[in-house]
Structures are given as structure tokens and as C-alpha cells.
């Protein structure tokens, strides 16, 4: 993090004097507690970069190698810290390169503010150089966006942007600022935004809904909890744990709910969804009360909605009213922040144990262990499995690492086999499934949690989508650990081709470069292993390294991820092989 660090200048001016729009932007960021942002300069944002140069002792700007990288880094930072991630880019291609990150943050509810430069106001709509309608383009993938065309709008709009990004169900906000608004002067003063009359970020919990939920939970014979990221975003990890323990309810997490509860908690029954665990998927259709907390019944979780948990009464704890009855009809919707609603619920919950019911999960875990997990973790075949690599990282890191995964087979394996002891430790692109997410997101995660080990788990396909961010690691000496699980295929698509397209491997075979040489070109220690005997020592060496480290593990080429619920099938049609 030492990009622009030589010249320092007399910094902050009193809040009432005339300053340029560009300087006002810096003061707004500082007022919002931002000390780190990611971005890439260009013509229409240059006045702001000039101010960043002057303020570099207060505000660190990380130059990524692509604007998409800046957005994912900001996301990684936001996901690990819970703070708003900030990314900046110029107009035109700079702005359009942010669209993937915005869409990813939108669907995964990640608080992020993106600031883009725009051509000067007089040129708007004239097809000027590097002009693009980023407001129009980003509208469907932002929680809110706004084009600033006058300097005096800057403080109020940026205050709103941060408020909207972080409040309620978080999400990305884009503020597009024309060049004239950066250059013109304004009388600056800053007021934090505390409310917007048309926006109700956190619905007030309804006491009767809480009562109805408690009543259902207390009388349930076979209750099951499915929790998602809403627990993490709502800081409700303790309340969730208390509920699970008090009522003795088996609890499963979604991909984005991972790490909100200890992996080894006795009532943690694993992951739901397409490549989730056998027990919670099967028993979704046997429970009598399904308690969903901070999750949105994504199709990768539910499979066919026509057959999903039809026997169960559904209680849906949710902050976003638009999620209620969107996919699954809730018998008892409980709107509100998860910490608040669970706190209100807890005193009404009777102590209980559902041992016989819990045994049903254990029985099915045994089935999955014998059919899948055993061979994945302790393979008898020659080639290495992805799961044994993840397992080795778990053991060597003491379950303490932040795991940042990309998208595909390795992601599902990482989600299935990673072990967590601390919340906000699983960072992955869940809803959008953005290949190329992990490398830049790991940079952001590391910078947000310098005291923690951050391990990026990436496939050979996704790695090459944002491989340029090795340059960011090099320049900033960011000590992230990069593990590429190389099967020389686009593994997940190949798996589908094998299962559903009669093994016609259309464009899924990868002819890869020498990844070790590439990493070494960026002065990153790099190793490639092909044999199991080297796994333990190399992982230990990687984790012991104080600097960035690249580890390529050649894994079995045509392994499939199981269990698997075929797309659109019923959760009980889960296949073990």
C-alpha cells in the first residue's frame, strides 16, 4: 500500500471554506471513515486523483490493474470488515468495467460505493470522448445511483450514497460526477445522512409475527433452520447460536451464510443447495417447521419450488420486504434486522432438544460421508482431490483463515470442506457466480484484515480472468496466499457436459500457461505440486510465508462435485454420484 507516497501537503481545511468539488469528494470520504479505496485513474476523474495525491497520508488509494479488480477488491474489503468498500474509475470504459462488480455486490448485498468520473456537463449526451450513460447502464445493478453535475451537490449526494450502501439490506451505489463538478468550487460542509423519507431500511418488527414464530418453533417436532448472509450482515451470530442451542434445532447454512456459526458446532448440519450436504437437503422436505433466517430462497438453494418444503410451515426472518413470498410463501414472515428480531424471539423460545430428529441428520451425514466425503478427503486414487487440499489448509491454518473462493468446482469444494471458527471468513461470489472474483477480492480482504491469513482458492479458469491483479499484489506487497486448483478444465461446465450433454466437452479444455513463471514475474514466491506427498509441506510453507505466495496444485482432471441436485430438480433428487 505505498503507491503514491512521497510528497505530502498541508491537508484538511476548515469545513466551511470554498474548495473544489474534487477536494470535497476527499473530505466526504474521510468524513465517512474511508481510509482505503481501490481504483484506476483516467481523464474524467483526474481532478479527484490530483486531490488523492495531496491527501495520501490520510487516504490510501490502491491502483488495481483493471476497474473490475477495483470493485471486487472493494467487495472483499467490505465483506471481511463489514464496512463500505469504495472503488473509483474514470468515465466510459472505466465505468463500464465496474458493472460486473456492481452486479455482484447487488445480488450478494455487499455495501459498496463506486465513484465514476463523467464528461463535463456541457458534453453530456453528445457522444463525447469516453462518455457513456453509466447511470442508465448501472441502474438495474445498483441499489441507488446518481449523476452529480454541480459541485454543490457533492456532500449531500455522497452522504446519501454511504447511508444507502450500508443501511438496511446493503448494496452497491454508484455516483457519477461530471468533470466540471470536480473542478468548480463550493462552500463545503458535511452532514451525515440519517434518513431518507422514501426509504425505510429496517422494517420495525411486528410483535404478533414474533409470537407466531415462537409458537410454531415451540410446538415443532422436526424444526430446521436455514440461515444466510443476513445473519452476518445483521451481526446476529450470537443470537443465532443461542436460538439453535436453546431450542435444539439443527441448522444449515447457505453459501453466503458460511462462517456465521462454528463449522464444528454440533447442531451445524452443513450446507443446503445444489452442491450442499445430503442431510439438510433431504430433510428440507421432511421438517415440519422451516425457519429461514436472512436468506432469500435462491434457486440454487431450493431446486424446484413446486416440491420445496411443501410439508413445512415456513417462518421467514428477513430485512427486505421484497423477498417475502418472492420464491417461497412464508406462513409467518418476520420482517426486521435479524439481530433485533432474534433477540425479541429468544425469550419466548422454550428449551428443547430434538435428539431423534437430529439423529436423522447424523444418519444422512453418514450416508454422504461413506459415499462422497471419505473419498474426497482421503482419496485412494493417485490424483489429488480439491477437497484434500482444502482440508490441508484447514488443518494447517487452524480453521482460522479467511477463505476467498472464485466460482466453479473449487468454489463448491471450498464451501463444502472449509472449516470456520469466525464470522466473515468466507468470501465468495454467490449470487452472480462471477469467475475472476477471488484474486482481487482476496486483495481487498487482506487489506481489510491484515492480522488474518487470507487464502484465495481459485480454479485455473477463473484465475486467468483477473490474473492481472498479481500486479496489484506485487506493487503493494499484499501478503495474500493464492492457491490455484488446476484441473486443466473449466471444471463445473465440464461436469455438466459430462452429466447432461453426453460428455461433449465444448470449449472446456484449458491449455494453460506456466503459472509459476507468471507469479515469479511479479516477484511472488511460487510452487507447483503434482504429488500428494508434497501437499502438507508446501501448504505449511505457504502459510508460514510472510509475503504473498502462489501455490498451484495439479488435481484430478475429471472429478465431479457431489452431492448434486440437478438444476430445477427437487431437493430430494440429490445425487451422491
Amino acid at each position, binding site marked *: 500500500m505505498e503507491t503514491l507516497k512521497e510528497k505530502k501537503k498541508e491537508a484538511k481545511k476548515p469545513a466551511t471554506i470554498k474548495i473544489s468539488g474534487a477536494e470535497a469528494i476527499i473530505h466526504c470520504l474521510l468524513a465517512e471513515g474511508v481510509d482505503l479505496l481501490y481504483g484506476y485513474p483516467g481523464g474524467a476523474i483526474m481532478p479527484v486523483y490530483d486531490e488523492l495525491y495531496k491527501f495520501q497520508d490520510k487516504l490510501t488509494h490502491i491502483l488495481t490493474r483493471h476497474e473490475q479488480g477495483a470493485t471486487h477488491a472493494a467487495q472483499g474489503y467490505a465483506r471481511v470488515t463489514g464496512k463500505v468498500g469504495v472503488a473509483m474509475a474514470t468515465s466510459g470504459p472505466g465505468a463500464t468495467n465496474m458493472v460486473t462488480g456492481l452486479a455482484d455486490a447487488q445480488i450478494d448485498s455487499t455495501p459498496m460505493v463506486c465513484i465514476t468520473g463523467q464528461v463535463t456537463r456541457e458534453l453530456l449526451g453528445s457522444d463525447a470522448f469516453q462518455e457513456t450513460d453509466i*447511470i*442508465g447502464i448501472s*441502474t*438495474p445493478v445498483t*441499489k*441507488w*445511483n*446518481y*449523476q452529480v453535475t454541480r459541485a454543490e451537490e457533492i456532500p449531500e449526494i455522497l452522504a446519501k450514497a454511504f447511508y*444507502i450502501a450500508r443501511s438496511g439490506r446493503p448494496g452497491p451505489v454508484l455516483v457519477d460526477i461530471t468533470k466540471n463538478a470536480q473542478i468548480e468550487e463550493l462552500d463545503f460542509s458535511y452532514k451525515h445522512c440519517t*434518513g*431518507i*423519507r*422514501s*426509504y425505510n431500511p429496517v422494517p420495525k418488527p411486528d410483535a404478533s409475527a414474533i409470537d407466531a414464530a415462537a409458537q410454531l418453533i415451540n410446538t415443532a417436532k422436526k424444526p430446521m433452520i436455514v440461515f444466510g448472509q443476513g445473519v452476518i450482515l445483521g451481526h446476529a451470530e450470537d443470537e443465532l447460536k443461542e436460538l439453535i442451542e436453546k431450542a435444539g434445532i439443527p441448522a444449515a447454512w447457505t453459501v453466503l451464510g458460511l462462517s456465521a456459526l462454528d463449522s464444528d458446532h454440533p447442531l451445524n448440519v452443513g450446507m443446503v443447495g445444489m452442491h450442499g450436504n445430503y442431510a439438510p437437503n433431504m430433510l428440507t422436505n421432511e421438517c415440519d417447521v422451516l425457519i429461514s433466517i436472512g436468506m432469500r430462497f435462491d434457486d440454487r438453494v431450493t431446486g424446484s419450488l413446486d416440491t420445496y418444503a411443501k410439508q413445512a410451515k415456513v417462518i421467514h426472518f428477513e430485512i*427486505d*420486504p*421484497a423477498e*417475502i*413470498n*418472492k420464491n417461497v410463501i412464508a406462513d409467518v414472515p418476520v420482517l426486521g434486522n435479524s439481530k433485533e428480531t432474534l433477540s425479541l424471539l429468544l425469550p419466548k423460545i422454550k428449551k428443547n432438544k430434538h435428539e431423534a430428529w437430529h439423529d436423522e441428520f447424523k444418519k444422512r451425514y453418514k450416508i454422504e460421508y461413506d459415499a462422497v466425503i471419505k473419498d474426497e478427503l482421503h482419496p485412494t486414487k493417485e490424483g489429488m482431490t480439491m477437497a484434500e487440499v482444502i482440508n490441508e489448509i484447514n488443518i494447517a491454518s487452524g480453521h482460522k483463515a479467511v477463505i476467498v473462493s472464485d466460482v466453479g468446482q473449487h468454489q463448491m469444494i471450498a464451501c463444502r470442506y472449509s472449516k470456520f471458527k469466525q464470522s466473515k471468513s468466507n468470501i465468495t461470489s454467490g449470487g452472480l457466480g462471477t469467475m475472476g472474483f477471488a484474486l482481487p477480492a482476496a486483495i481487498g480482504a487482506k487489506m481489510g484484515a491484515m492480522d488474518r491469513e487470507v487464502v484465495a482458492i481459485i480454479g485455473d479458469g477463473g484465475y486467468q480472468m483477473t490474473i492481472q491483479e498479481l500486479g496489484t499484489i506485487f506493487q503493494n506487497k499484499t501478503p495474500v496466499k493464492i492457491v490455484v486448483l488446476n484441473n486443466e478444465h473449466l471444471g463445473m461446465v465440464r461436469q455438466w457436459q459430462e452429466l447432461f450433454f453426453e460428455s461433449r466437452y465444448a470449449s472446456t479444455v484449458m491449455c494453460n500457461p506456466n503459472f509459476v513463471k507468471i507469479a515469479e514475474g511479479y516477484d511472488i514466491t511460487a510452487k507447483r505440486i503434482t504429488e500428494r506427498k508434497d501437499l502438507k509441506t508446501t501448504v505449511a510453507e505457504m502459510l508460514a510465508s510472510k509475503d504473498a505466495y502462489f501455490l498451484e496444485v495439479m488435481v484430478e482432471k475429471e472429478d465431479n462435485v457431489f452431492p448434486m441436485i440437478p438444476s430445477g430438480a427437487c431437493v430430494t433428487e440429490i445425487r451422491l454420484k
Partner: protein
Amino acid sequence: MKKEWFTISVYAENNVGLLNRISGIFLKRHINIESLNVSKSEIENVSKFTIVVNTTEDWTRKIVQQIEKQIEVIKAFHHDDDEIIYQESALFKVASDLLFDERQIQNIIKDSNSQIVTVARDFFVLAKTGRRHEIDEMHEALLPYGIMQFVRSGRIAVSKAEMPISKLLNNFYQD
């Protein structure tokens, strides 16, 4: 599920770009907006969008939830035709000769309860306000004589039940 006509009323801040944001929600679900009207509402500085769609009640409800989720939307409602009072307006531009040459034209004007807005040497303009089928009937009646121009507005509607926007806004200011 059965497709029906629904009128969606959206109370929102009057901001650039909001129409794009709202129409995008229909686009995502591949629903055609059958008519759209934007005007001021009974509350100062609050706009009202009146949107007519033909889809299932289930989807209408979900769309309304997703519209309401937008930051600058204060509240959205959906109603079926029995729950609202609604009208459309239309303008017909017709050649002036017809007024004198075709006796039937005067009957059409009388029967349709339309107004003559203006009469010029070459053309005259009829305005008709009413239900869609009334405007369609008038259109059909005039068609054989030739219509020089025709335009019909989006539906405007008020609900029989209350739409308590002022109360909502007052709650915000009290909090």
C-alpha cells in the same frame, strides 16, 4: 395463474432516472407496460406513476414489492379495475369537411359525449375522456370517415380505498 388487468400506483420522489429504474423491473420479468402516466399527486413534490399491466396477481404483487424497494419510491399499490375509478383521454384530428358533408359525424360527437376542442379551416379536434372501450367505440365509428391523427393517453386512476401517503411521510418526520 390467470392474467388480469392491474393498475399500479406509485408515489415517488420526482427524480431523474426513477422512471428508468421502475420500467427496468418490468423489463426483467418481460412484462409489457400497457399504459403509463406520470403526474403530480395530491402531495406537494410527490409524483405519481400510474402503470397498467396485464399479468397474474402473483407477479403484480412481486413487482409492486420490487418497485417499493427502490430508494426514491415512497409507496406502491396495485388494484384491479373494480377497486379504482379510472379514465383515459383521447384526441381525434378529423378533416373539417366531414363536419359539414357527413351528417353522421355530428351524431357521433353527440353520442360519444366528446368535445370539440378546436375547429380550423382544414381540421377539427375532438377530445374524448372515458373508459378504453368508449374511446375504442368512437375510434371505430370515426374510422370509416378518416382520422387524420389519433392519440390516447395512459390510464389515470384513483383508488376507492385510501392511499395513506401523507401519514407515511409524517411518520418519517416524527421519527
